[in-house]
């Protein structure tokens, strides 16, 4: 699963509570548009970005789900989800968008080691 030179973008914030998720996704999309292989790791509240039935936020906040749906067009198809975060929020993969890969918390350090380039949002 290691792609040399791939950029790992870690997303740890939920949609709407801040601009972290949106700006993290923007960085991932720009890297992909520049032809860099991009992998995503959703941790903590970041996994909420993948909930498939989410709506837009309050007071005119843009929804982030359309951006998640766009990832495939940018050849971003490695979406890791921290399994521990799913369990802590009592969510199952059924409630997430298709095509995610679960990763156990103790395997995350190995994933980080496989990537020389990491951006953490």
């Amino acid at each position, binding site marked *: 699963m290691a792609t040399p030179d791939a*950029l790992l973008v870690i997303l740890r914030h939920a949609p709407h509570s801040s601009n972290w998720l949106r*700006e993290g996704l923007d*960085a991932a999309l*720009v890297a992909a548009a520049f032809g*860099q292989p991009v992998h995503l790791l959703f941790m903590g509240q970041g996994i909420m970005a993948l909930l498939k039935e989410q709506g837009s936020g309050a007071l005119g906040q843009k929804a982030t789900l359309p951006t998640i749906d766009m990832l495939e067009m940018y050849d971003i198809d490695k979406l890791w989800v921290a399994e521990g975060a799913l369990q802590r929020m009592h969510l199952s993969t059924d409630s997430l968008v298709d095509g995610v890969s679960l990763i156990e918390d103790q395997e995350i350090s190995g994933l980080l080691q496989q990537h020389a*380039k990491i*951006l953490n949002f």
Partner: protein
Amino acid sequence: MIKYGFLVMGAPYSSPAPHSALRFAHAVLARGHQIAGVFFYHDGVHNASSLMTPPQDELNLREAWTELNQQHAVQLDVCIAAALRRGLMSESEAQRHGRQAFNIALPFELTGLGQLLELQQRTDRLITFA
């Protein structure tokens, strides 16, 4: 010698990130390492505001960054998308968007996210301060 790049995402006076970044910058420069550039993203873009006016007995963070640029030729890039949505823009952007004021000026430069990826490519270490 290690070549560093910084990604600063914390706002001045709200987050310790800019202070930490500047202290780290001076520490690595004192040890003979190099800092190729700083990229300001997320709330970190506020570091570039030329209207920043803290009380006189407090460090002016924008001036501290400017000094880093002048003394050590550290490039200071500000993400244009993150800056515009937070009300920071250069004179040319102000004209383009029909605004009556601007608050980003040299040595800070508005640029795209591609510049962050380029900084990561050409440095040994990209350190995030958030």
